[in-house]
């Protein structure tokens, strides 16, 4: 093979790199590196002129390899690979040196250090690139079916968008009904339209859509495969009610003798039966038997529901069903969990009976809730005369969650309105900052102020029932520093509503792991890019939408659901997806058949071929992590694009003496 001819391009990125790194010097110095035939600096390599320069040089200088020193490969690797491809060079003969994120931006006051580091990184890339091999990306067909996990408003929106476009959707929901948190709310801000009225039509659309297979009371157990071809195993828990026979008439739950506190849909305020439908508009309409509380499952007696069912739909023998699905894309819309206000003991939730959480209040004021929409104290009778609403409970607080929960300001304003409208009570809002930042929100804030709610700026330090004055007798006293008045205040009230924050689901980590996405510092799923790619994840074919990505309100969740659907439809319409050819392969001639690699592979991609006594990698299953490559005692497994030679050469290159005028690398 003829000598390699490497072209090196060092980017200024305006002042982003050139402001710290002596770009010109790096380029001149790179001319002395082995195999380099041309080294240039350029103001903006990613601009069309920069790319065209590369393309021209490939032709003019007959370059066999290209190195661009600029930003992170996660930014522009694709850009330059495409430029190489346009000039007829295999894109995998290109290598990138990250001298912006990893040098100029992090060493702003150390020009010499940053320049030396840039030289080392360029040298590493130059040494590595000559060992790189031309690779062909794998093309795989994309299955048109999509899995949506989570039947809250974000998941519903995503499912409907895709189903309406004519593609099949499997919607998996863990609860017996879809609807999510929105189904528990009474009104929605800032328009104050009824949550059920706008949600239930969408729920029914999902329930009856010919392109949607609705799997409620079901959970995903296992995910295998890759974009275009995921294999998903879903456990459909036994409802004990035959959906093909049940009409949802309701006789069974009317006659069921067992009352259970409903901690999910009634936030612990109300009751349901042991056989129940979560709420009247539930989709699907079929009830489910809660076998932990059902008398028959505990004692073997009762069978009341079976006796009264007019269609014989009750089946106590029903078993969990395992359903294997094949889908091309996955949207996670698993939502949030409400902050447990018990974690702040000084607010007294769980100890002081008239301290409520926001979700409890939603149920109180909801016409289908336990009090049929009457706002009353825990005794079920007394209407409060004064109500305190405490903002930022468990949010924007270093002790609990540092993030802003995004919805509490607005839902607190909504609560203030509902309390004043329904009871005429005096309302105090205790806030740190008001953040009504979307369309129509500021106007709503002003409206509530004009309606007469009082706003006290200060973080509540304590809620107590210990009075100091006669007017504090039998009241809850909200203690806080009013930061506008600059003094301590004690406000006696009848009822306190804690605007509890939004947290990631308790099992967010496990779910993230199962689907190959990451969790950020706050525990919510990480998007591929915080600004430019908010619904994609690091795993191709897995998208996120709604509050599982970060605290957000209904319009934002709907927007993300639709956005994720649009991304999925885009992928489906491509029909094929290109996969990185970063795969392991085994040299069967030299494989000793020790089988060490077989059990190491997390994807079971390595099979042992008995008749030959060697191992073989299934390229469709291999994800290119390289664990087997590092472990092979015979060193006969090659990790494409990250081979032993390539990384060793990179190490040699990175350890170059950057201070010498002409780079010298000792022969190994």
């Amino acid at each position, binding site marked *: 093979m003829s000598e390699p001819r490497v072209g090196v391009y060092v980017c200024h990125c305006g002042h982003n790199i050139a402001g710290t790194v002596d770009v010109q010097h790096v380029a001149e110095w790179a001319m002395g590196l082995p195999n380099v035939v041309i080294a240039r600096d350029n103001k903006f390599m990613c601009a069309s002129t920069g790319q065209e320069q590369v393309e021209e040089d490939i032709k003019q200088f007959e370059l066999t390899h290209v190195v661009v020193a600029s930003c992170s490969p996660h930014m522009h690797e694709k850009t330059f690979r495409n430029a190489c491809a346009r000039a007829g060079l295999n894109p995998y003969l290109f290598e990138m040196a990250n001298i912006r994120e990893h040098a100029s931006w992090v060493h702003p006051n150390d020009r010499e250090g940053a320049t030396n580091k840039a030289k080392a990184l360029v040298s590493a890339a130059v040494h590595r690139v000559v060992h790189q091999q031309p690779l062909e990306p794998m093309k795989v067909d994309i299955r048109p079916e999509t899995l949506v996990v989570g039947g809250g408003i974000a998941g519903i929106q995503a499912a409907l968008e895709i189903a309406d476009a004519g593609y099949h959707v499997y919607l998996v929901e863990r609860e017996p009904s879809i609807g999510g948190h929105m189904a528990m709310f009474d009104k929605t801000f800032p328009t104050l339209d009824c949550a059920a009225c706008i949600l239930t039509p969408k729920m029914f659309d999902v329930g009856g859509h010919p392109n949607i297979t609705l799997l409620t009371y079901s959970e995903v157990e296992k995910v295998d495969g890759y974009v275009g071809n995921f294999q998903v195993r879903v456990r459909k828990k036994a409802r004990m009610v035959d959906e093909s026979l049940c009409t949802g008439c309701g006789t069974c739950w009317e006659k069921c003798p067992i009352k259970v506190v409903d901690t999910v849909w009634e936030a612990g305020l109300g009751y349901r039966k042991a056989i129940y439908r979560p709420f009247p508009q539930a989709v699907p309409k079929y009830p489910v038997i809660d076998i932990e509380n059902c008398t028959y499952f505990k004692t073997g007696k009762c069978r009341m529901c079976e006796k009264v069912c007019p269609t014989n739909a009750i089946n106590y023998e029903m078993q969990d069903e395992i359903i294997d699905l094949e889908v091309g894309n996955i949207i996670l819309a698993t939502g949030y969990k409400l902050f447990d206000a018990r974690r702040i003991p000084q607010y007294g939730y769980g100890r002081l009976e008239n301290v409520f959480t926001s979700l409890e209040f939603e149920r109180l004021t909801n016409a289908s809730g336990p009090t049929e929409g009457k706002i009353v104290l825990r005794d079920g009778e007394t209407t409060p005369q004064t109500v305190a609403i405490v903002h930022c409970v468990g949010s924007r607080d270093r002790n609990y969650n540092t993030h802003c929960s995004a919805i509490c300001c607005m839902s607190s304003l909504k609560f203030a309105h509902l309390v004043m409208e329904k009871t005429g009570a005096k309302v105090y809002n205790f806030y740190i900052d008001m953040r009504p930042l979307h369309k129509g929100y500021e106007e709503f804030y002003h409206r509530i102020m004009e309606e007469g709610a009082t706003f006290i700026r200060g973080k509540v330090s304590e809620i107590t029932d210990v009075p100091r004055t006669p007017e504090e007798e039998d009241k809850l006293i909200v203690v806080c520093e009013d930061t506008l008045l600059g003094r301590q205040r004690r406000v006696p009230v009848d009822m306190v509503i804690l605007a509890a924050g939004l947290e990631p689901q308790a099992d967010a980590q496990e779910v993230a792991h199962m689907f190959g996405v990451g969790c950020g510092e706050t525990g919510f799923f990480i998007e591929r890019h915080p600004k430019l790619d908010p619904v994609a994840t690091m795993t191709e074919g897995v998208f996120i939408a709604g509050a599982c990505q970060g605290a957000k309100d209904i319009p934002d969740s709907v927007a993300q659901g639709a956005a994720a659907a649009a991304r999925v439809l885009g992928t489906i319409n491509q029909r094929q997806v290109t996969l990185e050819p970063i795969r392991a392969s085994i040299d069967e001639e030299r494989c000793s058949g020790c089988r060490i690699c077989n059990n190491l592979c*997390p994807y079971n991609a390595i099979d042992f071929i008995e008749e030959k006594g060697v191992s073989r990698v299934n390229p469709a299953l291999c994800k290119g992590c*390289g*664990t087997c490559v590092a472990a092979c005692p015979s060193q006969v497994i090659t990790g494409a694009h990250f081979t032993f030679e390539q990384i060793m050469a990179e190490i040699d290159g990175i350890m170059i003496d950057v201070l010498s005028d002409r780079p010298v690398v000792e022969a190994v």
Partner: protein
Amino acid sequence: MSDNGTFTPVIVGFLCNWCSYRAADLAGTSRMGYPATLRDIRIMCTGRLDPTFVLRALQKGADGVLIMGCHPGQCHYQEGNYKAIRRFALLRRTLRQLGIEDERVQLHWASAAEGVRFAETVARMTEQIKQLGPLDWPRNWPNEDPYAVEEAVHE
């Protein structure tokens, strides 16, 4: 090492593509300063880290090697970092027998969201190695041919 008496270590970094490399990117995007001592190499997963990579870096003159991956339980490839932990334990025993201090070769975690943690890790390790001084492997074991040594032993 510079000649004016102050020692600036060279640390070779092996960063996994999914978490720690992105943590380093985030440190950059957020302009979190740290010493210009780290020269990093991207690998897909810490599970790819062949222990000989570390030895090669030291042999070529690195004063330290920093391996960083995803937090345990958050590996993009499910469990590559657990394999790295096991291999690292063996590697560390080998390095101790060669008289190389524990601080010189370190294994840490940073998620893609932990730019601060990444910057702090580099800064801390730089200080530790400054305290230890240069390793200078190439000068201490100049051009030693391992096969020649082996033959000498056999004779």
